[in-house]
């Protein structure tokens, strides 16, 4: 049962990662690429963390996985904001 949930959730997560990577490669400008990366990859990582938490031995490990996901969300949100602001400045500067 747990293994099945792991397969399902990490599978969904991988699909999101694939979509995010495709967006990164195919989208035309910085802003849409950031959109693809942050939205899809954060969700993908969340699903992978959810999937792996079914393999965790204790609630402590689950909490650690959740903490890692939360930190990644925080970092990704901040970094994408900073990149977007820099890109805006560069576009308006030209």
């Amino acid at each position, binding site marked *: 049962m747990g293994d099945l949930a792991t397969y399902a959730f990490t599978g969904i997560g991988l699909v999101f990662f694939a979509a995010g990577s495709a967006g990164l490669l195919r989208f035309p400008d910085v802003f849409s690429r950031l959109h693809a990366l942050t939205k899809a990859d954060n969700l993908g990582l969340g699903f992978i963390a959810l999937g792996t938490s079914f393999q965790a031995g204790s609630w402590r490990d689950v909490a650690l996985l959740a903490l890692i996901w939360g*930190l990644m969300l*925080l970092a990704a949100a901040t970094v994408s904001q900073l990149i977007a602001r820099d890109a805006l400045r560069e576009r308006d500067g030209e």
Partner: protein
Amino acid sequence: MTLALDATLCGLIVAVALATVLGRGVFRAIVFFIVYGLLLSVAWVRLGAVDVALAEAAIGAGLTGVLFLAAVGKLARTGAEAEPAPGRPHLPAALACAGLTGALAWAWFALPEPERPGSDLAAALPRAGVENPVTAVLLNFRAWDTLLESIVLLAALVGLWLLARDEDWHDRLGLPQHVRPGGVMESFGRLLPPVGVLVGIYLVYIGADRPGGAFQGGTVLAAVGLVAALAGLIRTPRVTGHLWRAAMVVGPLVFLAAGVAGAALGAGFLTLPEPIAGGAIFAIEIALASSIAVTLAFLVIGPPERGHRR
């Protein structure tokens, strides 16, 4: 199946390393180098070296990446960002490097098979005072290496500070950061440090028994300080700050004191006798982590530069 995973990982690592060396633009090379460091830390987990993986992710990818990115910014400030024209393709150099790789590969297959690894170590471990064998080697069995390493860190920082111009000497370290008040970077700088400090201290504390230790924890603490400085929440100190200088040398000093204590107890310099080993290593770890955190952060920030005044 696992070999397929390893082969994919190794292929990726080599590809990213090639992109680092061959790609256009120094900024791109640095971004690839950071990706390379992160992939490499996964490789260390695959090799069963979790302590090294932590160090590689925190120092190899994290701090080194920040150092290089900041260097690009500093070069742009000097007006020397123009990329020199790439040289002609070096065919002889490429062949020589391929030969070097070939020679290393040959050396690998010529290496004699090891005896059961760590049999002497396993016998000595119960007397080390800690359960994590890597910490035991670092701070007890090969304490000389680690003591000298902490002094190398100090020497590198002194060398870096010597590069400061005379008129900048009394300025704060590095360049001032301009951050929009209430912006994302400032919020990030407020949110991250509490978690980061907790993780750093936990890594130092847990290092006696599980993967972690003074280097990994100290690096996380250094990174927290860098984030806070980048977010403009703390101002970087001055070269002349006595408290910071004390923090830089406390690690080597406590280490030396423990070494002398070992000699006084008759075990020999830097040999920790079993009764005091556990406590001594704990004291060294805490002092060393403080010194490593401060020294690494200062190394990444760089020497004092003009720009704070004006």
